[in-house]
């Protein structure tokens, strides 16, 4: 099952893809029975996120792209609630920055509390998956507690959605193609089979020192192919079985700056 959280006509709803018989292939069916077009709703992150955990440099090709070598331990950082954004939203590129890039990532959503979970049982704690587009502005990178929040925890710069897809519906999360398109042109491609630290490893590692709770999310990192994006660019991240997550870059003016 794929579920979205959307705002429509004065309330927040759970929504699923409309039945195949609906003429509009992208229409949504709200839990109360109404069928609405995708552009009539405001898409929110598809679940109420708890702790948001993100991986840096978890694909060998991307690590190489940024000049990193062998790692003994995953590079993990955390995000706050204010950075989260839904499908079809806009993300601000501040004037004067030189390098802002997207990162298409498979996101694992925790469904059952996880503490000291062995990798062999890790998937029992996974509720489902969604796509993340984890923007970074590299101009702000400093060498203290990297990656610093000014690079990675900006308002509206962590896009989640469009759907939360049940774990049962993804046959093999270790073999999912990821693609990013900028204005329709393919700029990034990878496959989750190339993760340096895979999902079972990450659940075992994280739960060895922190209890993971339902709603916590693990953004598993991005493959190579990150490029600079400018106001007006439409960035679409796609993962096999999870849909297409669309975001548009806007300039300061949109935010009254």
């Amino acid at each position, binding site marked *: 099952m794929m579920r979205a959280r959307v705002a429509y006509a004065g309330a927040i709803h759970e929504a699923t893809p409309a039945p195949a018989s609906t003429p509009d292939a992208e229409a949504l069916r709200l839990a109360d029975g109404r069928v609405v077009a995708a552009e009539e709703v405001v898409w929110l992150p598809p679940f*109420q996120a*708890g*702790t948001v*955990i993100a991986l840096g440099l978890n694909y060998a090709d991307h690590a190489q792209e940024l000049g990193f070598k062998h790692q003994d*331990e995953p*590079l*993990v*950082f*955390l*995000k*706050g*609630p*204010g*950075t989260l954004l839904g499908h079809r939203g806009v993300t601000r590129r501040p004037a004067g920055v030189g390098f802002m890039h997207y990162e298409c990532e498979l996101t694992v959503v925790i469904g*059952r*509390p996880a*503490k000291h979970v062995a990798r062999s049982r890790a998937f029992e704690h996974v509720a489902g998956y969604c796509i993340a587009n984890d923007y970074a502005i590299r101009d*702000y990178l*400093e*060498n*203290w*507690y*990297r990656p*610093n*929040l*000014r690079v990675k*925890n*900006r*308002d509206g710069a962590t896009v989640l959605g469009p759907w939360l897809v049940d774990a049962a519906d993804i046959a093999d999360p270790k073999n999912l193609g990821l693609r990013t398109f900028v204005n329709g042109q393919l700029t990034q491609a990878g496959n989750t089979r190339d993760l340096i630290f895979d999902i079972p490893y990450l659940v075992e590692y994280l739960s*060895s*020192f*922190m*209890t*993971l*709770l*339902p*709603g916590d999310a693990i953004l598993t990192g991005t493959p190579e192919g990150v490029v600079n994006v400018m106001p007006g660019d439409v960035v679409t991240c796609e993962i096999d079985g999870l849909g297409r997550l669309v975001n548009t870059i806007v300039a300061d003016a949109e935010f009254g700056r």
Partner: protein
Amino acid sequence: MPAGADLFSIPFDVPPYRLSGAVYGTLLNHRTALGALGEAAHQPPYHAPPVAPVLYIKPRNTLALPGDVVRIPVGTLELEVGACVGLVIGRTACRVAESRALEHVAGFLIVADVSIPHASLHRPSIRFKARDGFCPLGPAVTPRAAGVDPDALWVRTYVDGVLVHSASTAELIRPAKALLAEVTEFMTLSPGDVLALGAAGPAPRVRSGQTVTIEIDGLGSLSNPYREAAA
């Protein structure tokens, strides 16, 4: 609240205020903390002292209440306890001007930022700071209306009743209002979020069997026993 949240003792209701569960910490914001680095701040891997506030996140699994036992992981001799003043946000704070910053603060509480000591501040693992129970806070939110000046508070840390550390927030590099202005330039803070102003250096260390009490002028005191985790 999602299922499973009852695994933790923190109910987020810290009278008279309800916390959101988002806790942000600030590092190297006290002259003694940055000063302790000396020339190293100019050397690799840092190359230069920080320009923007150095921030980190204490996730919800770290939150704990007064009296909760802080567990020292097996194989770790000591923990570091950074005593901080925490600002509790009362009104959505986005791009606040310094002159109006404190109007967005509901009140203050004590935040004990517990860490496994780690030498490098370049890219430390979150397992040093994000362990279960590594962020006791409380004992209550002192409302801003009580007249507390966050930039003139003595912060005292006692281990088993003996004063081991004291510092004043008057020596913060970015006082509360300056920090709020810089942080909310790129990151909106919402009601119930906590922003810790940063500990003075060098943070006291504590071993199993000891009890740490942090006392801050006007904010009361926060005590927690430290015990070895079960193997």
